[in-house]
């Protein structure tokens, strides 16, 4: 897997920061507060950039490395914003033996980003996922809630063009 990096500059608003501070204040006395705070912070910002993790650290006194540790432990948490169109390519075994690795590589090439990143215009983000359960249609990818099955690399341009 290629290394993840933050590709879109942080653009948090004061309203978002106020909402986050309220969440933290409400959960201040909760023993296992970090997970719910992170989940709510992701609801507020759409993702968990370092700036937000640092704010949480400053407010709660929890070391940044611990927050980063939990945020990166669960794949539900994202350090990068998702695009307007979230592409996720299934790399489960059934899809992999039917060539989803080629689909994933072709998408990285076409979009100019690696998995986990978002295009600089905020349009597409790309992720690999493990099994959406549509193994009968392998190889499969999803764009937002739409499932595309029995894919070939040749289909990709037409599919992406639908989202222009």
């Amino acid at each position, binding site marked *: 897997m290629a290394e993840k990096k933050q590709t879109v500059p942080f653009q948090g608003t004061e309203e978002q920061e106020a909402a986050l501070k309220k969440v933290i204040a409400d959960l201040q006395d909760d023993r296992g507060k970090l997970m719910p705070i992170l989940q709510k912070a992701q609801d507020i910002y759409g993702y968990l950039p370092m700036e937000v993790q640092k704010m949480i650290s400053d407010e709660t006194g929890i070391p940044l490395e611990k927050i980063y540790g939990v945020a990166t432990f669960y794949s539900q948490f994202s350090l990068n914003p998702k695009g307007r169109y979230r592409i996720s390519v299934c790399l489960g075994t059934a899809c992999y033996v039917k060539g989803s690795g080629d689909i994933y590589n072709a998408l990285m090439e076409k979009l100019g980003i690696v998995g986990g990143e978002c295009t600089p215009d905020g349009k597409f983000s790309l992720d690999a996922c493990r099994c959406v359960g549509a193994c009968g249609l392998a190889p499969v990818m999803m764009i937002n809630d739409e499932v595309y*099955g029995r894919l070939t690399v040749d289909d990709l341009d037409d599919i992406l063009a639908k989202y222009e």
Partner: protein
Amino acid sequence: MRTLEELQEVRERAKAEKKVCSYRVHVCGGTGCTSSGSPRIIEKLKEEIKANGLEDDVEIVKTGCFGLCALGPIMIVHPENAFYSMVKEEDIPEIVREHLKNGNVVKRLLYEETTKADHILPLEETNFYKKQHRVALRNCGEISPEHIEEYIGRDGYMALGKVLTEMTPQQVIELVTASGLRGRGGAGFPTGMKWKFAAANEADQKYVCCNADEGDPGAFMDRSVLEGDPHVVLEAMTIAGYAIGASQGYIYVRAEYPIAVQRLEIAIRQSREMGLLGKDIFGSGFDFDIELRLGAGAFVCGEETALMTSIEGNRGEPRPRPPFPALKGLYERPTILNNVETYANIPQIILNGAEWFAGMGTEKSKGTKVFALGGKIHNTGLVEVPMGTTLREIVEEIGGGVPNGKKFKAAQTGGPSGGCIPAEHLDVPIDYDNLIAIGSMMGSGGLIVMDEDTCMVDIAKFFLEFTVDESCGKCTPCRIGTRRMLEILEKITKGQATMDDLDKLEELCNHLKSNSLCALGQTAPNPVISTLRYFRDEYIAHIVDKKCPAGVCKDLLQYKIDADKCKGCTLCSRVCPAGAIVGSVKEPHMINPEKCLKCGACMEKCRFGAIYKE
């Protein structure tokens, strides 16, 4: 609901209601068919039924998975049991008009195999279904999972009623033990024994957990049970609670399964409303309730101690055992954890008896097992067969064999913890012990078929990438060992490895097996060990000959043009993104290996089969 008699009344009413409509149309609402468009089919059906004035004659039931996902969306019309496969929206008006209104089955649109004889073949007699025996999946595709009455109509909650009114906890545990049921989540530990240990430990509170964090890629049987028959899990957990003396249950379910989560929420609400969860169930004085906990996407949380740590709200890291969860589990209280498929067997065992269940399967593996068939096979989907069925029966008869005239190479079971079974073992009866003996494991039941175009070194690398990604990092052998193993595998697939690397790889396998903290690390080497055992020559071909026999590993491939076959049509040079193909019109072309990206575009486009790779 307070008594067994009341439950029986609901059951009789549900059975009677089924007979009111002339037609019952079952449309699969599982994830596979939903992805291939079943929600639109249901909408269109409703429209057409209304347009034809058939609202009182036809009942539409959105069911769980029928199993034959490859042919989705699937629709079955009762009473004829007519099986319409790959249904399209534009077919619906004809089906409604001809079949539901005029009573003529639309033969043209039926699943091909059912129309070959003079009469329409019942589904149970098709190759896909005739060797199957559905116990855990018995209600999937038969009932609407969002209506508790339908579950009760199929004897749902009768087992719970029997347990609470006629049996002692001790008797329940003895019955489950006598049935020989073993855990369907992977390791195959005897379920009755697990319950017995937890029952024996005194505590102020005990817990019953359900592992619905089905993380093996390519396995989706638990999800299908949750989507198609959620109440069976609730009923079985309540029975388990009574057996061990627990009053609280947790279902830990993947957030990636939205349909399953939604149906579980509905089912829990309905059970509480009917008094089948809550205080004093069936007037027995026994209390039990269930809560849902969503995972956040971590494979290791399928390991029992990690799952419990995650429910408590921490990083989902495993901890050493002992103490085992039966003594100190969730919140340090005695806890049992079984997976969804294990629970799905429990009510049937209670109702039909231990002998009935033990009558199926092999000497040490009783009952049936659900497999998710995927990969290079015709009938991808979900199958449930008695233990002891051979791999050949599953792959060739039920699965319809390998498509496109390709040769079967191996079947992978057990996901990232399992191994690859080669053709020479196709006739081994599948059960827990036989699979271990041939170097794989049952796992949760994913069964991925691979053909001659699959490179076994690449598959081993694929699984190691998965475990490197999912290793929680707590123990060193797994955190660092899996990465070192992956690096060696990468070297091999790039043609940069030596035979010494292979020795190092095997040494690492042994280290990980014996030194890792939890099953994730202990079993991570299995894909490597099993492919080395059966396909060692492929590893050697990569290392010594610098060749990938299956033609998968790009660094070891060269695309070439057969000068005798090339007509010089220039198509290949025009599609080549790298400008690597040169040649004049009507003259044989050449590929410049320095520039070639090995994308394969030329080979796909060539009309004369002149381009090959080696």
